[in-house]
Structures are given as structure tokens and as C-alpha cells.
């Protein structure tokens, strides 16, 4: 076993350190340079900033609204707050957050915990299974491998909704209806096709020579997986982990349909906040922000993996 760090598949670096001798650039390189030029033009930057601002406005409005008192929310738009600040009349309050979090018997704080309990296993289970499956599809030759892979991959087109009723009746037959298990299973089932596809593509991307070298050294599948592939797969795993985390955290349909009341995630509770006849809609902004905090933190903390991993997995088909 070698203990040297495994070389990264970094073709770009190789090319830049290539001999200085002027040579004909490949088409791809010319395109890359042209693209770089386009992207760094002041116009492009301006447009990018403009789009970013436009896309942020609704969230900013939501954030401001969530801190305004109920009567003010009902009477005027959030943008009037700027004029009010200038004239010193702006009112802010955390009442909405208080009421959303602790206001009634279905307070959000308990559902907040539920959301974590649902999300963490619903991320770990599909990643674990998908890693094993992806390894088999990528590096273990067996009969019907390609057919099976296409079959798994094509399961992605099955919409979640058609599976709701059959799954629910099966869960009831198995006697686990309404528990956390149903939500974990369902999320894992729905995540696996994409997870296997992404991780498989990423594994295929790793130079076969690495795997062959390890095999020549006498490593078995387990050792190859853990010692050779796993360290290289971290970005892909992280990116899919974030993807799945955001999906499960924001999911309403699965949580609403499968879980019984005490096991439902926060999205369900936020949807109920408005009250029987929608009269309490001023609480929704606060509820939305409470449920947004966690995915926001996860995304910002791990976003470099997100971009890198998604590209690595998806570009090479």
C-alpha cells in the first residue's frame, strides 16, 4: 500500500505547466478563454449583480415583514419600512417569532427537532446504499450490469406522487404506518436513483489505473473502496449530502402523507400556522425564516463542495 497522497485528476494543472513552446490551442481551450473573457466583462458582472439583487428582493421583503407587528403587516407593504425608518416611525417586534415558536399547542420548536430526526437518517441511508451500488456498477463487472444501471437510472422519471398511496398501504400492512421509519424509507427510496447515478459517474471518473494498481498490490474490493476511492469521493458525497439534506428538510409532501402527527417535520407545522381559515397568515413569514435557517447554514458552510461535486458527477455522462 502506498502512503503517498493520491494524485488528483487535475488535467488543467498539467496543461498549464506544459512547455512554453507556442502551440496550437485546442478548440476547447479557445472556447474556455473566450468564455472567461465574456464572464469577466463589466457588463456581465453588472447583469450578474442585478440578477442577484432581483432574486434577493423577495427574501429581504419576507425577512423585514417577519419583524413587523401584525397590524402593520396587514395595513402596508414591507417597502414602506424604509420611509418609516427615515422618519423614525418604523416599528419592529419579535412577536411573530415568539408566537410561531411557542404560540400554541402545535408550536414549531418540537417540530424543529422532528425535522432533524427525519433529515439526518434520510441523508445517511441513501448515501450509504448508493455508494455500495455505485461501486458495484462502476468497478465490478457482472452480467447485465449496464441494463441494470439503466433500469435504476430510469427510475428517476417515476414521479413521487404515483407512489404515495401504494407505499402508504404497504407501510400500514407492515405495521409501521405513521412512524419515522416510513419517512426515512420513503426519502431513501426516492433519493436512490439519482444518488446512484451521480456517485457512479463520479467513480467512473477516477482513473482506472489507480484501481488496477491497488488490485495488483493485492487489495480487495473493500480495501479499494475505503483506501482508494473513498478519499477521492468526499466532494461528491458532500455535494449529494447537501442536495439530499435540502430536499428532505424542505419536503412537505412525504412528511405530510406518511408521518403521523407527533412525527411530522417542521414544514407541515409551518403550513398549519395560518390557522383554519388562513387568518393568521402574518405568522408565515416568521415560520418560513425559522425553517430556512438550517438549510441556509448548511448550504453556506458547504457550498464549495456543492458546486464542485455536482459538476464532477454530472458533466461526464
Amino acid at each position, binding site marked *: 500500500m502506498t502512503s503517498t497522497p493520491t494524485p488528483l485528476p487535475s488535467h488543467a494543472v498539467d496543461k498549464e505547466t506544459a512547455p512554453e513552446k507556442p502551440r496550437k490551442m485546442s478548440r476547447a481551450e479557445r472556447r474556455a478563454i473566450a468564455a472567461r473573457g465574456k464572464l469577466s466583462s463589466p457588463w456581465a458582472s453588472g447583469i450578474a449583480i442585478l440578477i442577484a439583487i432581483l432574486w434577493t428582493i423577495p427574501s429581504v421583503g419576507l425577512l423585514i415583514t417577519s419583524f413587523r407587528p401584525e397590524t402593520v403587516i396587514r395595513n402596508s407593504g414591507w417597502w414602506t419600512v424604509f420611509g418609516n425608518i427615515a422618519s423614525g416611525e418604523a416599528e419592529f417586534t419579535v412577536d411573530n417569532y415568539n408566537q410561531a415558536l411557542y404560540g400554541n*399547542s402545535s408550536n414549531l420548536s*418540537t417540530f424543529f427537532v422532528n425535522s432533524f430526526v427525519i433529515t439526518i437518517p434520510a441523508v445517511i441511508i441513501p448515501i450509504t446504499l448508493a455508494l455500495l451500488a455505485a461501486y458495484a456498477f462502476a468497478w465490478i463487472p457482472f452480467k447485465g450490469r449496464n441494463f441494470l444501471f439503466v433500469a435504476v437510472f430510469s427510475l428517476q422519471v417515476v414521479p413521487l406522487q404515483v407512489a404515495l398511496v401504494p407505499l402508504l*398501504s404497504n407501510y400500514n400492512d407492515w405495521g409501521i404506518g405513521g412512524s419515522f*421509519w416510513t419517512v426515512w424509507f420513503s426519502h431513501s427510496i426516492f433519493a436512490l436513483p439519482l444518488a446512484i447515478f451521480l456517485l457512479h459517474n463520479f467513480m467512473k471518473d477516477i482513473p482506472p489505473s489507480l484501481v488496477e494498481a491497488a488490485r495488483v498490490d493485492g487489495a480487495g474490493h473493500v480495501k479499494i473502496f475505503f483506501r482508494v476511492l473513498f478519499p477521492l469521493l468526499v466532494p461528491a458525497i458532500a455535494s449529494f449530502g447537501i442536495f439530499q439534506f435540502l430536499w428532505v428538510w424542505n419536503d412537505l409532501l412525504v412528511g405530510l402523507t406518511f408521518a403521523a402527527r407527533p412525527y411530522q417535520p417542521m414544514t407541515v407545522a409551518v403550513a*398549519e400556522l395560518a390557522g*383554519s381559515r388562513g387568518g*393568521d*397568515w402574518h405568522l408565515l413569514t416568521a415560520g418560513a425564516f425559522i425553517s430556512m435557517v438550517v438549510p441556509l447554514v448548511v448550504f453556506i458552510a458547504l457550498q464549495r463542495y456543492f458546486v464542485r461535486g455536482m459538476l464532477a458527477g454530472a458533466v461526464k455522462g
Partner: protein
Amino acid sequence: MTRRTTASRRRSLAAVAGGASLALLLAACGDPDGEGGVAEPDDMGGDMESSIDCAAYDEFGDLEGTTVNIYTSIVEPEQQTQEDSYDAFEECTGVEVVYEGSREFEAQLLVRIQAGNAPDIAYLPQPGLLNTIVSDYPDAIVPAPDATVANVDEFFSETWKDYGTVDGTFYSAPLGANAKSFVWYSPSMFADAGYEVPQTWTEMLDLTETIASEQETLPWCVGVESGDATGWAGTDWIEDVVLRTAGPDVYEQWYTHEIPFNDPQIVEAFDAAGEILKNPDYVNAGLGGVDSIATTPWTDAGFPILDGNCWMHRAANFYQTQWPSGTEVSESGDVFAFYLPTDQTDVKPVLGGGEFVAAFDERPEVQAFQTYLSSADWANEKALATPEGGWVSANTGLDPANLQTEFDQLAYETISDEAAVVAFDASDLMPGEVGAGTFWTGIVNWVTGSSTQEVVDRIENSWP
């Protein structure tokens, strides 16, 4: 060699630790009967003990330790008052009532029935849903037990019993009732300006005309926006007017489609409502022009009354709970309501609504609970458990003195009046494509400029 051993040992330790913590997590969270999640509020002490006669539930045997699940569209803030009203029954029988409310109730109930885990009891917000369930899932729903039928015969009128009956079988006892024929106003504004509460439709139009000419503010405020149900508040307006201009008999022919939706009598009712709703001199007080009706949330449309910008707002009894906290609802307070008057002398039509109790199981505790909900005991317990008001029942065993607000007593008086004809909300009785579809969108088109004829023709064409 040494390095490798440590490294692999560390790794395997990590794997073991990771696996163990995952297993712990799964074990801790996977217990479906666990006490985790939402804590049940404790019983409210002993002060409610045996406030009802427990003997009525003896016939169902010993129910101690059993559970009844109910599923409903009623969520906070009404959920708490519902749960409190079950305490007396729980103390009598030892049954635990598990309450689950969801705003997605109507879609989710059908999913659960199909998947075979229907709740024990569901509160159906409209008879149309009962018809759908009985015709699509006849095996899931069970008829009401004899004790419940006896209660309904004793405490409810024939009309209410009919709403819970499909093809001659009685399934669902009425629960709460809504009375929608009310006009909210500010008693002090009326007194200061010297206006009287109108007693007939004509008087009301005269008053409207007087306000429009004497006052700087417009007389009426209206709003029909309600998310994906935008328009329903306007359908109530039309239904109330149909009851008044065409009468309850035509009203029944209208929702059963014995007469077409574009019948001249319906057109007449639309135009009578349009005298107010489409008149820029009468609407939309404090909110904008006529077309602001479509964009004003129905929950907020009456608020200009509080600022003195609006004189009258037609809304149901449950609008009582929509007023901002701190608003005093009484004849001497900030806002109150009067019965939407009529020129008819023989009848006083009341547009109503209500929930119906459907059962999906025949266990004795479920039947006992059904019986409790249809009893006068429950109606009185519920009235006492609703200090904020906003709830009435058509149960004749309800003692009006138990209703906690002046307005609820008025609402109860209105629906139990000798001359009252309680007509169920027509849009809830029409096929879904119309009653929860084109009728709603038709209202929006109507208040934003389409002519009555265009709108009723389009709705008629969409009738399945």
C-alpha cells in the same frame, strides 16, 4: 507496518462509533409509540370533573384505556377549544381522544382512506365530501350508531339530519354550525351618525344610499381573496342574495341544477348583489376601487370598520375571531353584526354551513364518542370551552346562556329563529368543478369587469 495498524484501527474504531451512533439514533427515533414529539397538554385539573351525565355511555361497555383518533380541517386557534370540549367525555369513559388537524385535510383524508388507514372519525366540512366518500369508498365509512341517531332525532332539525344522509342511510351527525348572513358594523359610528340597523333589504339599500351621499367614506367594504380559494367569500354574497330575491325553493333548484346556473332568477340575484358590489359609489371603502374586492384578503376586508373608513361588511359568524386581538365585539363595543335583512315577510333565510362527523370504524369507543358529539352535553361543553366565541351549533339542546359572547348568542338566535330557513352553502353542495372552481373564478371576473350574463353563462357551461 505499525503505521498501517494504527491507521486501520483508528478507521475501524471510527466506523464502529459511527455505526453505533447511527443505530442509537435509529433506535431512539424509530419507536412509533414513543412519547417523543408533541406533548399532550395535561388535563385541566379536576375542575371539569363529571360535568356531564356519564350514564349515557354505559351501554358501550368499559372503554378505559382505549383511543379514538380524529382527523379534521380545524387547526389552531380553534383546535384547543375542540380538545378542551372532549375533557368531560374522557373523564367519564377513560377514552383518550387524539386530535389531528390539517389544512390539507380534504386531500389527505381521501389518500388515507385509499391506503387503508382512515382515521376513526373525521369532521367533514361539507356534505359534498360525504357524498363522494360514500359513493367512492362505501366499505370505509360506517353508518351512525343507533344512540347517535337517537340524539340527532332529538336535538337537530330534519334539514340538518338530511345533510348527513346519503341514499336513505344516516352517516354523519352535524357538529358545529356556521351562520353566514351577517353584516358587521360599528355600533358607535352608527349611533354618532344617527343611523338605525336596517330591518329590510330595502331599508339597507336606503341606508347605503344615505351613507354614500352624506358621508365622505364609502358604505361597504368587501374582499374575496383567499389564496387558492379566492372567490368563495363572493359566492356567499351571491347565495345570500339568491335566498332573498328568489327564495329558498329556487335556491334548492339552483344547487341541484334543476334550473340552469344562468336562469333569469339567478341573473336577477347577481344584479341585485351588483347594485352594491359593482357600484363604485358604494365600494370598496378604505380599500380602493371596485376591482380591489378581488385582491383584498377576506380576513382583512372588514378592518377598515375599525378605522372608521367603512360602514358595513358582510361576513360569516366566524369572522368574529378574525378581528385583531383587543377588538371588543359587542353591541356597545367596537364592532357588532346584524342579520343581513330581507324583504321577505314569511321566512328569514340564513346561509349556513357546518361540519359533519363521519366514522370509519365501529369500535365501541368510536361509537360512544360519536354519540357524545351529537349530544346536548357536548354542545354545551364546547360553548363553555370557547371563551373567545366564534362557535355555534344547530343543536337545540344548546343552552344559549352557555355561549360566551354576545355575538354567538345572536348567531344562535338567528339560526334557531322560528322563521329561519337555514340553507346550506350552495357552492359546497354543487359539483366541485363549479362550487370550488368556476363559481369562484366567476366571482373574480365579475367584480373585475365581466358582465353578469357572461359570468353565469360560463359557469353554466362548466357544469359537469
